[in-house]
């Protein structure tokens, strides 16, 4: 670089300024989030169609789920989202250590979320509430809607759980880096992006909860 000022260490060689680089990273992340939204869209559209076609069965099926787990998990994710947002706030002030602690709290929330999910899945396995071919649950009658509901249930919550785990990994890595003082008040865009990802996971769950548990 032939710029007069010394380039900050995080500046990649092909960007002219750190601000532009961060702008690019942010835009890239938003585009990525858009693809994530559309990844889930196919499942939500499938849900919408079958909810329309088998509305009675779907309503009954959702009554056989543990609403209290859904509610608790929703609250857990909301709180974890809050701590992630607060962690970003701390990072902007250069307090890497409190960012780390807040992020770890969110990861803990994620762990609790996954535990509830695991408990729920185990319960379903025993009841025969399984997807597609393996569906043996009898309480919903012999109509075809039940197997589809549980196919969709596992696909949506499973894909979401996969994203929760990815998010936990990202938060851990970025949290550790924040504690190690890798980010400054000028450069903390990775913290921001990790937060965005976690918020998206929360955002999707906000729609999953009423559709699956309260339908």
């Amino acid at each position, binding site marked *: 670089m032939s710029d007069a000022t010394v380039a900050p260490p995080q500046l990649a060689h092909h960007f002219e300024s750190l601000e532009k680089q961060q702008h690019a990273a*942010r*835009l890239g992340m*938003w*585009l990525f*989030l858009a693809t994530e939204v559309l990844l889930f869209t196919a499942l*939500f559209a499938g849900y919408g169609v079958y909810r329309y*076609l088998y509305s009675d069965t779907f309503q009954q099926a959702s009554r056989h789920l543990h*609403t209290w787990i859904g509610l608790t998990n929703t609250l857990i994710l909301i709180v974890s989202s809050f701590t992630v947002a607060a962690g970003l*706030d701390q990072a902007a002030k250069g307090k890497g250590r409190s960012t780390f602690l807040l992020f770890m709290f969110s990861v803990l929330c994620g762990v609790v979320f996954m535990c509830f999910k695991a408990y729920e899945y185990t319960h379903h396995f025993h009841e025969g509430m399984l997807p597609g071919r393996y569906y043996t649950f009898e309480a919903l009658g012999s109509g075809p809607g039940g197997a589809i509901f549980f196919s969709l249930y596992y696909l949506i919550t499973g894909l979401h759980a996969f994203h929760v785990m990815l998010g936990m990994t990202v938060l851990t890595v970025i949290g550790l880096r924040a504690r190690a003082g890798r980010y400054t008040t000028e450069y903390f865009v990775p913290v921001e992006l990790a937060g965005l990802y976690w918020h998206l996971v*929360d955002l999707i769950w906000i729609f999953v909860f009423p559709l699956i548990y309260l339908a």
Partner: protein
Amino acid sequence: MAVSESHAESEKLHHSHLGRYVAVLAALVVLTVTTYLAAKVHLPAPWNVLVALAIATAKGSLVALFFMHLWDQEGANRLVFLTSLVFVALLVGLTLADNATRFPLANPPGSTGALPAPEYVPPPQGGATYQR
């Protein structure tokens, strides 16, 4: 221009938003409880879902606008997210419209509005032999 845009974005993040976050958290918790209670109220057919979805949209907007800072950002990022939502609506809307307005027998048998199942034997897995 991109430069001023990125500058403004970074600037806004430097203000502390903690107070705002707390307010949003409170609102989200209240809305979550509301949606749970609303589901217990018995409403005529489509309304339960619509109410639940309306509340979810409100919650989602809060998360997107304040936790994800779309409120502070400009131009491209908002547009990206909005566009993706337009396409969500598009896919869900037009596929649903198809099922809702079809020749009723073309919907899966056993579903609302369709007639009882006609004879259907699923083909055996991998059975690509002549059955003639």
